[in-house]
């Protein structure tokens, strides 16, 4: 990889300052960014490690829901959200592999917004709020297509707050090589309705399946989506699955997520 200046601030304020320089890039767990840099597909001049920012780590329950620090690893979320938000904990526990889960973070995943990443589906389905050093961004505004987000230059995600659903589950169908989601569906049931977010399937990145939300809000049972049709239009068609196949998975996994929701 190209060389860079390495900075490791210990506060958000210092991280923000370091990010102000030209060519600066935040480094969270590095499980995607470092491979990208090794391939010389990214070449930041300054790499700002967030692994030393204590205030960006941890999981805690507050008035607005479950707050997860952006630099919290998947392993920590899997362990600490287990009681409060099992659907999220299970999702975190299925990302990558144990070693990746010990490094990778929720903030890194959301900033990158890989169309096959797991976390975006939970954030979108739960209607979470993405907190940055500048503002709060609603999930529905945050995701703007594959690898594209509402984040501005130099903006750092500090935490994510999840309203905790009454029932939820994430069901992921692995892409066999990368173990990312070939398709993954997060179903979240709230008092005022159901939200369904789908990752891995669409050329436009994570999306809400509104028809399923309506059907499940009326009747939270797997059978409620049986009659729905998912269009293969805009679905990803690649080596690992056709667009039609992914469209099928969206429906099958949604049914399974409803069955699994707790």
């Amino acid at each position, binding site marked *: *990889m*190209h*060389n*860079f*200046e*390495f900075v*490791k601030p210990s506060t958000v304020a210092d991280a923000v300052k370091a990010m102000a320089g030209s060519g600066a890039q935040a*480094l969270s767990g*590095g*499980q*995607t960014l*470092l*491979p990208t*840099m*090794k*391939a010389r597909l990214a070449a930041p001049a300054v*790499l700002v*490690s967030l*692994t030393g920012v204590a205030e960006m780590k941890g999981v805690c329950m507050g008035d607005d829901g479950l707050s997860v620090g952006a630099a919290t690893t998947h*392993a920590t979320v899997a362990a600490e959200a287990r009681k409060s938000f099992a659907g999220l904990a299970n999702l975190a526990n299925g990302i*990558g*592999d*144990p*070693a*990746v889960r*010990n*490094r990778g973070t929720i903030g890194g995943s959301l900033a990158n917004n890989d169309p096959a990443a797991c976390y975006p589906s939970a954030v979108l389905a739960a209607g979470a709020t993405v907190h940055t050093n500048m503002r709060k961004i609603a999930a529905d505004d945050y995701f703007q297509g594959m690898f594209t987000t509402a984040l501005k230059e130099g903006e750092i995600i500090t935490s994510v707050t999840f309203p905790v659903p009454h029932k939820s589950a994430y069901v992921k169908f692995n892409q066999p090589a*990368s*173990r990312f989601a070939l398709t993954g569906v997060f179903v979240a049931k709230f008092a005022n309705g159901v939200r369904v977010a789908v990752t891995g399937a669409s050329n436009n990145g994570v999306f809400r399946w509104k028809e399923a939300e309506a059907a499940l809000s009326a009747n939270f049972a797997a059978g409620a989506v049986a009659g729905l049709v998912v269009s293969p239009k805009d679905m990803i068609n690649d080596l690992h699955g056709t667009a039609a196949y992914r469209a099928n998975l969206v429906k099958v996994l949604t049914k399974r997520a409803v069955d699994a929701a707790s």
Partner: protein
Amino acid sequence: MTTISMTVNGKAVSGEVEGRTLLSSFLREGLGLRGTHIGCETTQCGACAVHLDGQLVKSCSVLAMDAAGASVTSIEGMANGDGSLSVIQAAFQEHHGLQCGFCTPGMVMATAALLKVNAKPTETEVRHYLEGNMCRCTGYHNIVKAVMAASGQDVSAIAAE
């Protein structure tokens, strides 16, 4: 170049690194600990796995500077104090859990991490935990068997010689 210090296999070490120096390179080239292997550059194969402050990580996807001040254990630190094979290492030998040996350091490190959090893993749990460690030789049969044996479980009912 920046000088960093850390504890590796219980010993205080230091060395010069660039921003881009990976923990795996620091171990292999900086410290001469060549048991940590590189099998890919996409954080997939697990041959480079070490413990960083007690947690399993892929050392090819951690910057050396980010590990400054930390405590690292690599395969070279896994044998018993007298140099004899640890329980995990001995189980891998006893059950033929390695062939070419290239993935082996990562497998041993992953096994040690697993057994710390799950003293008696089931077959399914072992297979799931090892999903980030690729082996091309063994078909995993004897690796899974070795891990279960290392946890003190009776593996005599599992097929093979």
